[in-house]
Structures are given as structure tokens and as C-alpha cells.
């Protein structure tokens, strides 16, 4: 019914690789992407992690591209604005609009490119993580990092019930569409408001049933967290280290060129 990231996270070729290693790769790639002041390193991260996601984890390329399209369209819009707003440097492009000339200058163009590169690098890192690593593994890492127990328990239950309410929302939506609840913008708004209201009430009731279910099984403040599964082999560790070193080198070299220019 749904094409969910979560389904891929549970069935991909990298599912059984140590979650700690995947988290380390994903998080450091995100940090590197957003902190880089040149577009080369984020683009390198985006390219290599996209290849890893599609070739190693065997996520269908079509699905992957569709996923990337959404954040990229946002990034594209903001980049366009940024490109026109920032002045300085040679004129790269001028739109001859009478009375209001729009120009892209070098600085603005570079900034727009950097913005897109950072978004792409960050999103590819995030997708790499979320398409290969099931949430329960991430909870296990949270635990090993000594996150507060209450935060972990809350996130686990939120995660569990997202899917229950997703199903309910889909059913309510179908019930509305079947009776033409989506005909016209007014109807659509009204239906959506009703869906939200009903879902809120249902989640409230579900919460009450949850408490009963927990006390029926002697709840005493304990919800086990799964142990971590799978150690990273030396080869995997070496490969991850090599990748990160390469990304850092690209970043360093790019900064160096930037400095010389």
C-alpha cells in the first residue's frame, strides 16, 4: 500500500552491516557536507553515497531518484533566489527585463552551486542511513550512547504507532474520497481538517488502550531495547575509513584551490 523508506530499511543488501558503521558514515558525511565551504566535497559525498545506496544496498534507482527529487526541488528554488540576490564578481547571466534588470554575478552563482551541493550531499547521506538501517538498530545505538531511557522509549513507541496511524489516515482518506470528499478545494480543505480531527481523537483513544495493554502485562517502567547486532569486519572498517579520508581530502584540496585562486 505504501512505498515506505522503512520497508527498504528492513530489506536491503546492507541490512546486516553493522549499524554503528553506517551511522558513523552517514553522520560524518552530513557534517562534512554542511560544513564544507566549497561544492566539491559535498558533491563527492553525494556521488559516492548514491552509488553505495543503489549498487551496494540495491535500492531501486527509480525510487531513489524520486526520493531525491523533493529536497532538490526545494534547494533549486532557494538557489535561484540566492543566485540573483548576491552581487559581486563578473556578470554570468543577465535577464533583460525592462526597468528591472536581473543579473547573476559570479559570487551569487557560486553560492547557489554551494547551496545545491550541500543539500544534495546532506540528503544523500541521510537517505543512505535511512534506506539501509532499520530504526530498531538506531534505538540500540542510542542506548549504547547512553541517551536517556525515557527519550528512547518514547521514540520507540512513536515509531511503532506512526504506522498504525498511517494506515488509519489512509483508510479515512479513502473513505472521504469514495464519497467525493476531494471534489473542489473547499471540500478538500474540509476533508483534511476532519481527517486531522479524527486522527487526533483516535490517537488519544489509542493512548488509553496502550496504557491498559501495558498494565495488563505488569508494566513496571521497563521497555527493553534490542542489543546491537553485527560487528563491522576489519575490511568494512577499512573501506569506511578510506571513503571518509577521500572525502576529507577532496574537501581539503578544494579549500586549497579556493585559497590560491
Amino acid at each position: 500500500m505504501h512505498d515506505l523508506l522503512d520497508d527498504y530499511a528492513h530489506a536491503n543488501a546492507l541490512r546486516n552491516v553493522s549499524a554503528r558503521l553506517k551511522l558513523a558514515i552517514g553522520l560524518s558525511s552530513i557534517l562534512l557536507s554542511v560544513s564544507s565551504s566549497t561544492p566539491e566535497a559535498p558533491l563527492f559525498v553525494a556521488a559516492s553515497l548514491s552509488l553505495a545506496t543503489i549498487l551496494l544496498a540495491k535500492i531501486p534507482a527509480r525510487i531513489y531518484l524520486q526520493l531525491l527529487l523533493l529536497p532538490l526541488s526545494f534547494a533549486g528554488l532557494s538557489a535561484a533566489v540566492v543566485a540573483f540576490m548576491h552581487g559581486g564578481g563578473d556578470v554570468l547571466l543577465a535577464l533583460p527585463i525592462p526597468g528591472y534588470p536581473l543579473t547573476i554575478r559570479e559570487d551569487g552563482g557560486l553560492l547557489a552551486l554551494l547551496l545545491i551541493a550541500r543539500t544534495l550531499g546532506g540528503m544523500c547521506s541521510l537517505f543512505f542511513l535511512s534506506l539501509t538501517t532499520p530504526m530498531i538498530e538506531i534505538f540500540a545505538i542510542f542506548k549504547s550512547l547512553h541517551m536517556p531511557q525515557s527519550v528512547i522509549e518514547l521514540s520507540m513507541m512513536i515509531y511503532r504507532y506512526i504506522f498504525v496511524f498511517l494506515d488509519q489516515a489512509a483508510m479515512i482518506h479513502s473513505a472521504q474520497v469514495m464519497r467525493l470528499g476531494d471534489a473542489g478545494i473547499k471540500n478538500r480543505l474540509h476533508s483534511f481538517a476532519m481527517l486531522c480531527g479524527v486522527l487526533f481523537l483516535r490517537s488519544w483513544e489509542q493512548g488509553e488502550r496502550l496504557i491498559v495493554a501495558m498494565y495488563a502485562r505488569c508494566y513496571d517502567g521497563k521497555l527493553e531495547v534490542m542489543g546491537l547486532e553485527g560487528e563491522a569486519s576489519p575490511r568494512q572498517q577499512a573501506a569506511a575509513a578510506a571513503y571518509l579520508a577521500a572525502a576529507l581530502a577532496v574537501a581539503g584540496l578544494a579549500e586549497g584551490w579556493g585559497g590560491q585562486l
Partner: protein
Amino acid sequence: MTAILECRDLSYNYGDGTAALEGVDLALEAGRKVALVGPNGAGKSTLMLMFNGILEPTRGEVLFRGRPLGYDRRSLREIRRAVGMVFQNSDDQLFAPSVYQDVAFGPANLGYAAEKVKRYAGFALQYVGLSGYDRRPPHHLSGGEKKRVAIAGILAMEPEVMILDEPTSNLDPASSEEIMEMLDELNCGGKTMIISTHDVDLAYRWADDVVLMKDGRVAGRGSGPEVFSNADLVREARLKPPLVVEVYQQLKARELVDGSRPPAGVLELCRLLEQRWAGPTACTGKTGRISILAVDEGEPGDAEVQAALAEARADYTGAMGSSAKILAQEVGIAPDFTYGVIDKCILKALAGKSSLILTSGGMVQHTQKRIGEYCRDAGVEISVVRLFCIPPSSPAHPALSGHQKP
């Protein structure tokens, strides 16, 4: 017989004063299979929620093993461990993000050591046939699998009584039968089972005791044939008679069968018909043989099961219980019967066909007893053969040895 759960003058009012239960007196015996039947709003679920102290009665009391339930924290923990409850909607019950975490929830909260929690949860998952599902999230499971996980979560707390609210609602027929068969197996292991259901055929076939509820009261109580042969009672409770009872009543009205009360199932109905139409000799022709192989003794593999099939000269195979079904799948045989196995094998034996029943060691005695009882009641002879696996380490011996039960 001692009552394991008892209600005395039990009443419960909702917040707005509507009565859900009014003066229920009921004593349930240990080790029985009990079905609560009745229309919507009859108070079945309310009564069930009182059995493990989730609702506190407005008037009257609930007794567990003769002692009134206390509603302080310690007594409640005690009763909720001993009386486990499986909710109608599995999504209400499965709140952990993975199967193992959910099953381990009860033992962990009972304060067991980590190793013990692991052992109990592992055992429960194996029992319901879901070993290896540990890390799956509940939203990736089918309805039947979710129900199994819910049952495992209760089983891991080792309850004496298991209460299941509408255990087969929203399940396909095969899953329902498998769940009901698992409940049978648990009952053979000594647990008292209480279910609520609208499915009269299910209640009739499965339960030792049927409790018919109506408007917050117990309207009828007894064995399935006793309760459901009272047509007025059944109609007033907005139920319908089970199919077997209906067929029997129609046949009886036409004097096609004898007997004083409805048969317990298809098997009994066939017997009544045979007795009436061909005399008791009809069944004394050559009956088929029933062989039994315990799948958890001596680790039978492909070779052993094939040898068992040959040894049993079986026309039909039946797999009873999740371990047997898993083995059948592993060795690539499709069992002819996966539910109601014993009765179906007896019916085949009466028709002169032989069958092999794969089941767990704990069910062998029950199977032999059930066939023995039938033979005694019906005055027929069906030979029951217990097959044993010889460990593969001694290749000089045949893979199996049979021994005849008189």
C-alpha cells in the same frame, strides 16, 4: 473440581451509570476450555477485563483460586502474571517496535534477569512458530503473525489462565484454525483457556464449557450441545445454532438419526448416521491406521519423515501444531490436514485410509487418548502406531522403529 476463577454477584457500571454486568455468578474450573458467547454489548469483554483486575467491580468480587482479588499494586502484578489477556486488536497489544521487544516486555517487567528474559521470550516465540522474527517490526507482520506475537507476549509470562478476546476476528480461516489449534495445544499443557466469540460454530466445536451471556448476565451455561440445543435461548441471545446442531435437528425431525442431544461435531454426526443406517457393523470393516510421529524427539529430518511416510503407508498426512508445520515445510511436504487433524484422520481411518500425524511430543498422549475415546464410544478399532526416530548417528539401524499400541 476446584474453580480457578470465580465471580460472585459481580456487577459493573460505566461512568455514566449504565450497567455492563449485573450480578454475574460464575465459577470456571481449572484446565478447561471456556467460550463466552453472546451478542454485542452482552458484557463479555467487560467480564474478561475483570478477570485480571483491569476493571474493578462496582459490586461483588472476583476470586482467583478461592482468594478475592486485591486491587493494590502487588496483588495486581500477581494476578496479571497468572491470568494473561490477549486483546482483540493486536495493534492495541503490540506496542514495541520489534517482535522480540514486545514478547520480552512482560518478563522484563516482572523483574527477571536479562538471561531469563531472553530465554522466556525465545521459548515463547519458538512455541508460536516465529523464531527468527525477533527484529521484525509489527507493521511488517500479517494479521495471523501479529496474533501469534500477542499470544507469545502473554505466554512468556507463564500464565495459568489465558484470556483471549475474539481471537479469530479479522483472521482468514486457515489462520483462525491455526490459532485455535495452538490454544488447544496450550490447554493440553495444562492452561485454562477462556475466549470470547461470536462464532457459534467455533465455540461449539472448541469449548468444553460454553457460557452464554446476554444483557450483562449469564443466560446459559453448559457443554456446547447443552447450551446450543436450547433454541429459544440461542434466538433470544441474537445468535444462531451451529451448523452441526441445525443439521442434526433437521435429520432428527425427519427421524433420520437417533440420539438425545446434538453431536459434538462432524465426526459424531457421521457416527450417528452410520449407526442408524447400517448398524454398528458399518464401522467394523477394515479401518485405516493412524501413525503418530513426534517432531521434537530425535530431530527428524528429510530422511526420517520420508521413512515415516513409507512406514505409515499413509494416504494422508496431518500436521498439528506450529513445530510440526515448520518441519513439514522444511522437508517439503504439504500436509493434507492442518487443523482439526485428529478428527479428520479418524474419519479417514473409518473410510479405510491410513494417515500420519506429525505433532509435538506433548500432544502425542492427547492424540492417542482422543482416538482411544472415540474407538471406545463408537465400538470400533483403529490401530494407532507411535513412530520413533533413531538418531542418524547409528546408520546400521533403520531410520525409524514403530511400536504397536494395543
